C-alpha cells in the first residue's frame, strides 16, 4: 500500500471466526413452535417434579412440605365445600372495586400528565414520592382510619396501584409522536379533538400494558391485606390455615392464586394484542 502514505502501524490483527452457536442459544433467534412448547412444559414440570421427589423422600415434615397428593386433597375439599369459591369471590370483589377505582382515577390523570407538560410538572413530584411509599406500610394506618372492613382493603389496593399506573400511563402518552399531533392540527383538529381522537387511541395499547402489569400488583396486595385483617378471602384462608399448621391448604391456595393470575394475564394479553393489532 504505497499510495496511502503516513500509516506507521502494523496491519490490524484478525480474530478467529466465531464458533457456530446452536439455534436455541442464539441471541434473539426465534425458537421453533415445538421447542417453545417443550420449554414451556419443562418450566412447569421441573419444579413440580422436584416437589414430588422431595416430598416422596420423606425427609421433610408434612407440616413444612405437604405432598402433592395432600395438597390436591385439601384443594379438592375446599372446592367441594364451596369455601374456595367464596374466598375467590371475596378477593375478586375487593380487586374489582379497588383496582377499578385505581384505574378510573389513574388513567385519565396519567393521560392529562402525559399530554400537558404543565400538569406533569405540577403532579410528578408528589406522585413520584407517593409511589415510593410501600403500600403494605399503610395497612395499620388504614385500619385506624377505616376499620377492618372492606373499605380499608379497597383503599390499600387503590394506594398500591394508583400512583404507579398514573406515571406509567403518563409515560406512554408522552411518547405519542409530535408529528401526529401536528398533522392532526393541520387537518383541522382542535386541542380536545387531538387528545381524544389521536393521543388516546395511539397510547391505548401501552395503557393496557400498564394496566396488565399493575393488575398483578393488585392481586398481590389483596392477599397481603387479607393476611392481616379480614374474615374472608384467599389471604384470610391462608392465615387461618397457618394457625392450624395446615400447610397443604396453604399450598393449595397459593396454586389457585397463581393459576387465577395466569388466566387473567392471558386474557388481558389477548385483549391488548387485539386492540394493538395495528402496531408494526
Amino acid at each position: 500500500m504505497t499510495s496511502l502514505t503516513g500509516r506507521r502501524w502494523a496491519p490490524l490483527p484478525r480474530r478467529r471466526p466465531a464458533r457456530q452457536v446452536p439455534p436455541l442459544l442464539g441471541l434473539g433467534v426465534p425458537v421453533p413452535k415445538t421447542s417453545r412448547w417443550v420449554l414451556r412444559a419443562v418450566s412447569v414440570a421441573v419444579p413440580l417434579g422436584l416437589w414430588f421427589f422431595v416430598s416422596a423422600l420423606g425427609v421433610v415434615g408434612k407440616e413444612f412440605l405437604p405432598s402433592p397428593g395432600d395438597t390436591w386433597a385439601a384443594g379438592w375439599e375446599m372446592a367441594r365445600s364451596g369455601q374456595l369459591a367464596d374466598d375467590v369471590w371475596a378477593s375478586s370483589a375487593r380487586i374489582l372495586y379497588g383496582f377499578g377505582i385505581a384505574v378510573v382515577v389513574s388513567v385519565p390523570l396519567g393521560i392529562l400528565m402525559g399530554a400537558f407538560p404543565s400538569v406533569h410538572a405540577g403532579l410528578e413530584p408528589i406522585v413520584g414520592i407517593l409511589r415510593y411509599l410501600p403500600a403494605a406500610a399503610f395497612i395499620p394506618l388504614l385500619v385506624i382510619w377505616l376499620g377492618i372492613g372492606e373499605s380499608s382493603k379497597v383503599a390499600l389496593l387503590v394506594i398500591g396501584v394508583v400512583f404507579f399506573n398514573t406515571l406509567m400511563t403518563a409515560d406512554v402518552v408522552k411518547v405519542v409522536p409530535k408529528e401526529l399531533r401536528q398533522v392532526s392540527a393541520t387537518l383541522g383538529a382542535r386541542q380536545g379533538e387531538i387528545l381524544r381522537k389521536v393521543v388516546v387511541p395511539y397510547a391505548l395499547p401501552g395503557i393496557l400494558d400498564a394496566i396488565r402489569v399493575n393488575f398483578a400488583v393488585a392481586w398481590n396486595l389483596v392477599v397481603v391485606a387479607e393476611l392481616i385483617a379480614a374474615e374472608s378471602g384467599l389471604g384470610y384462608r391462608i392465615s387461618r390455615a397457618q394457625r392450624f399448621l395446615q400447610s397443604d391448604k396453604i399450598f393449595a391456595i397459593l396454586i389457585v392464586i397463581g393459576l387465577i393470575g395466569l388466566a387473567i394475564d392471558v386474557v388481558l394479553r389477548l385483549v391488548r394484542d387485539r386492540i394493538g393489532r395495528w402496531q408494526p
Partner: protein
Amino acid sequence: MRLNAIGRDFGSTKALENISLEVRPGEFVCIVGASGSGKSTLLSLIAGLDAPSTGTITVDGARVHGPGPERGLVFQTGALFPWKTVGENVAFGLRLLRLNRAERRDRVAWYLAEVGLRGLEGRLPKELSGGQRQRVAIARALVCEPSVLLLDEPFGALDCQTKDDMQVFLRQVWKDTGTTILMVTHDVEEAVFLAQRVIVLTTKPGRIAAELDVDLPGHRDLLLKREPDFLKIRAEVDDLVRAHM
C-alpha cells in the same frame, strides 16, 4: 399566499431572515437549500405550527395564526394514524367537519382513486409500502381542499425508483386538482423536475439567495431528466445551492 419579511429566531440564532415570497394560486414552487437553511422551519411557519419572530404570512388574504386544513402539510414520514385504515386516515379531516357518511365516502373514494390507491381503503398503514404511505398522506391533506399544499421532503425516505414514480405522480395530482403546491426538498433534480419556480435558500440564517423560473414544458415525464435543457437548469441550481452553503 404571501410571506412578508419573515424571520424566525431560536434564542440568539437566526434560522430564517427576511423571507419575502408570493405564491400564486395554482402554482408549483419548490424551495431548495442545504441542511441548516431553515427549509422545514419555513414550512411549519406557513402551516401555523410555529410563529414567525418577525413578519407576517397571509393565505387567501387572511393572516395565519395557527394550523388549519386550508394549509395541508405532508411530512417526510407521512405521519399516518397507524391504528386507522387508509380510508379512515383520508376521512379524518372530513369527520372533523361533521360530514355525513355518504359525503365522506364519495370524497374519500375520489381522492384514493386520484392517488392510485383504489381498493386499498381497508388496509392498515403498516401493510403499505413507503410510497403508498406518502400517497395516503397526500390524499388525506388534499381531501380538505387546501388553498396550498405544503410538502416537507415528502419523498426523502424513498428509494430512487419509487421517488421517480412519486414525482411523476405528484405532477399528475397537481394538474388534476389544480392545487397550489409549496414543496421543500434538498434534492435539486426533484425540485427542477417538479416546480415551475425554484427558490434557493442560504444557510444560517436562511435567506432567499435566488429565484429561478423553470422554463421546461408543462408535460414532464422521466425522460426529461436526460434532456440538455433540464440538465442545464439543474446544474445552475446545483451551483447556486453550493455557493450558498
